[in-house]
């Protein structure tokens, strides 16, 4: 039986109240008042689609050891690199072995479901035993645009396998149509869209029913056989129309989280699937329909293994644990929509040296240090001569991963002098349970809430954006563990 073994989600911490956008930009496009309800999730200054995908991936890794993963597919329309495989960076960040399959799926908002279908088919073919499918998007609209109001950032990940399956993959039905509702060219930073009415009437209203009916026909099913139906479509009135047209009980249609997260692009339908799985019971049948240059419709049946799946920080946890972004201008700065003055200090050139980066790839991407086989001391960055003064063994090291270890704050500061996208730059020394000490950047916190001894976890983040060369550099940051809501 091939299907989903586990799922993970990630919604970034910051939520932008849409009224703040309207208050700033409504003068330009008063019609956006209709869209200025609720809030949208936005990636932090040190996040992008790739870091969010890694966070979602980690969120579903309790069910498997990183060394046992056989591949990773990444679906997104906002990958940081055109050349340099993005899925390969995810594999490195998750600490996967080198002999794994990897591929990027992009070009449409179906890229997530297409990556997931391909993962199911790779396992079904017997080529691999498991595969991780990550989906993430972080799309941009111009200031004052409807897209700016709608788009939200989120990521989901699914561990696909043929054992311990919590939701069996029964099959899919796909439509490919060059329907250009939203188009971004090779060099476009911002989304462009055609008239809403056209997208609605000839896009969603034609293609969604076509996909649903195609799937039902292919698997000889009725719409009422499904306990949950998930489909992408951020036009709220249109959803009512579609529900009625297809004979769907609105109570069985999964919420799209538009007021809480936003239009999540490639991640939309799969975030909804993750939310549905959080509440699913054995025997539930779930239909997932994505939309973008056509449709993918997928059919799942939940198994009794779902009862054994460990509780995790799912969609509901993430929805409850966001914090309000105080200023709209921060969003504009963090996404490089408007230029900001970080001071002359920020202009010193910290060029990216690729060969140097490649040499330390496991340390940087996977947060691997070394552990002395002789005395057991973990150390970062990886050392050849043991740092323990009473040991000093030479070349008796094994790789040791720090990112998944328990740790606490040993010292900290909030630095207002450092050139930062989100000052003050917060950093300090971290002590690891089991040994090891690293001085590193913190994220998703404020100085006033920190204290020595506070526990931290680790998150894969943007370390530095080399603007002159358009290269995003990554490393891990310590995330102080706050009280949960």
């Amino acid at each position, binding site marked *: 039986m091939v299907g989903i073994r586990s799922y993970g989600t990630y919604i970034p911490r910051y939520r932008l109240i849409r009224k703040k956008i309207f208050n700033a930009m409504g003068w330009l496009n008063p019609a956006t008042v209709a869209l200025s309800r609720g809030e949208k999730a936005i990636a932090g200054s040190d996040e992008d689609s790739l870091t969010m995908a890694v966070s979602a991936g980690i969120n579903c890794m309790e069910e498997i050891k990183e060394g046992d993963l056989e591949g990773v597919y990444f679906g997104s329309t906002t990958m940081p690199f055109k050349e340099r495989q993005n899925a390969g960076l995810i594999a490195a960040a998750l600490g996967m072995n080198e002999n794994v399959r990897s591929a990027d799926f992009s070009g449409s908002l179906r890229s997530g479901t297409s990556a997931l279908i391909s993962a199911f088919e790779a396992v079904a073919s017997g080529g691999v035993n498991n595969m991780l499918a990550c989906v993430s998007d972080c799309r941009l609209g111009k200031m004052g645009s409807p897209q700016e109001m709608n788009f939200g950032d989120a990521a989901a990940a699914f561990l696909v396998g043929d054992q311990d399956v919590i939701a069996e993959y029964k099959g899919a039905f796909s439509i490919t149509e060059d329907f250009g509702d939203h188009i971004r060219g090779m060099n476009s930073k911002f989304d462009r869209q055609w008239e809403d009415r056209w997208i609605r009437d000839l896009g969603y209203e034609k293609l969604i029913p076509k996909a649903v009916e195609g799937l039902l026909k292919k698997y000889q099913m009725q719409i009422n056989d499904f306990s949950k139906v998930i489909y992408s479509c951020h036009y709220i009135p249109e959803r009512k129309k579609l529900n009625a047209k297809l004979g769907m009980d609105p109570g069985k249609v999964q919420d799209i989280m538009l007021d809480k997260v936003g239009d999540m692009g490639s991640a939309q339908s799969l975030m909804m699937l993750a939310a549905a799985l959080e509440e699913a019971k054995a025997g539930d049948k779930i239909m997932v329909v994505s939309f973008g240059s056509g449709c993918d419709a997928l059919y799942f049946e939940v198994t009794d293994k779902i009862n054994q799946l460990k509780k995790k920080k799912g969609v509901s946890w993430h929805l409850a644990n966001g914090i309000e972004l105080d200023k709209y201008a921060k969003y504009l700065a963090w996404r490089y929509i408007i230029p900001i003055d970080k001071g002359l200090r920020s202009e010193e050139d910290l060029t990216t040296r690729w060969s140097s*980066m490649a040499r330390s790839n496991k340390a940087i991407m996977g947060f691997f240090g070394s552990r002395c086989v002789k005395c057991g001391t973990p150390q970062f960055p990886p050392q050849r001569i043991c740092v323990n*003064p009473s040991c000093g063994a030479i070349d008796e090291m094994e790789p040791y991963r720090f990112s998944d270890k328990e740790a606490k704050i*040993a010292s900290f500061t909030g*630095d207002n002098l450092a050139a930062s996208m989100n000052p003050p730059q917060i950093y300090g020394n971290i*002590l690891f349970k089991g040994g090891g000490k*690293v*001085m590193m950047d913190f994220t998703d916190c404020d100085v006033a809430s920190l204290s020595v001894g506070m526990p931290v976890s680790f998150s894969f983040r943007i370390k530095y954006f080399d603007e002159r060369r358009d290269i995003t550099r990554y490393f891990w940051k310590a995330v102080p563990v706050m009280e949960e809501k």
Partner: protein
Amino acid sequence: MATGIKDKVAILGMGCARFGERWEVSAQDLMIEAFVDCIKDAGIEKKEIGAAWLGVYFDEVNVGKSAIPLAETLKLPFIPATRVENKCATATEAFRGACYAVASGAYDICLALGVEKLKDTGYGGLPAGVADGQLEVLVGPNRTAPGGFAQLATPYEAKYGVPMEKLKKAMAHVSWKSHQNGSKNPRAHLRSTPTIEQILNAPMIAYPLGLFDCCGVSDGAAAAIITTPEIAKSLKKNQDIIYVKALQVACSSGEEAMYTDWDGASVLSTTRAAVKAYEEAGIKNPREEISMMEVHDCFSITELVTMEDLQMSSRGGAVEDILNGFYDLDGTVPCQSDGGLKCFGHPIGASGIRMLYEVYNQLLGRWPKDRQVKDPKFGLTHNLGGIPNRNVVSIAILGK
């Protein structure tokens, strides 16, 4: 069997430029200012200098690499000249090179000169850049000097249970005292006298360090001419001779940065270097025997912790000593009688020799009454380059 540097070399002369935001002068001008002062004090001719050492940290915004800028600027006649760099210990390293060269018997007279032109960056604080290697750029925190040294404060608060409010008061006293001392010194960069309240209420630079917890970023230069005790006595008849009693350097081993057995409320390199320096100088009880100190007060918390690392205050006892005025100019062991890095200023490559310049002149009793330490016997200088968990420390002790 090595016997150390004690009494093997003497200081023949010293000089120091006026420190500050010297927009009008170049690094070369600063070198000349310190050198002219120094050679006049030594009472020798330039041709008598056998070898020279130049200390410069930021070559990129300064004079460039090598010791050629020193030789060309001073027109030193084809003598061996060497540039040294060891973070904030740079100047003391130049001094050490000159001392060891004389002590070895290779030369009779040597020059050590440190210079730094920091104010050509266009922004406050030290110049940014790749100071700790490429891997540190990729994985190290996006940090500055105040943020690095602020890391001492939160562990100190946690380890000794000192409320941050009280720790901040002791830190403020450290800076207040240095401003008082600096205000009396015509060569010092910062000569204002802020109140404790002004210091406490200053804008935050890197929690918990406010503006007045940070030292001046200055241009400056300082120089020393070293010779043998015999030559010194022959040239300075019937005058006090100042001898080098100890010269120690300790570099971090990685323990502090990577190994858990270090609490972060002290600096291991200072602790280790101090033990060796006292042994070299034959000092048994530093709190009783050291008359005055010029320590690396790049930040107020650094000076506070250094008092403990140098065994002047007991562990956890610096806060009380500082608040009791133990280190004030009229206290038991005056610290930073010239204003320190805090107010005299901190041109990195010059600072160590500037400290020695102050101790040298104090030992000779050359200062006006209002800033002369009474009858000093031993003076200690201390530099700390890097950050608390990864650094180089130099300690020098001078005496008559």
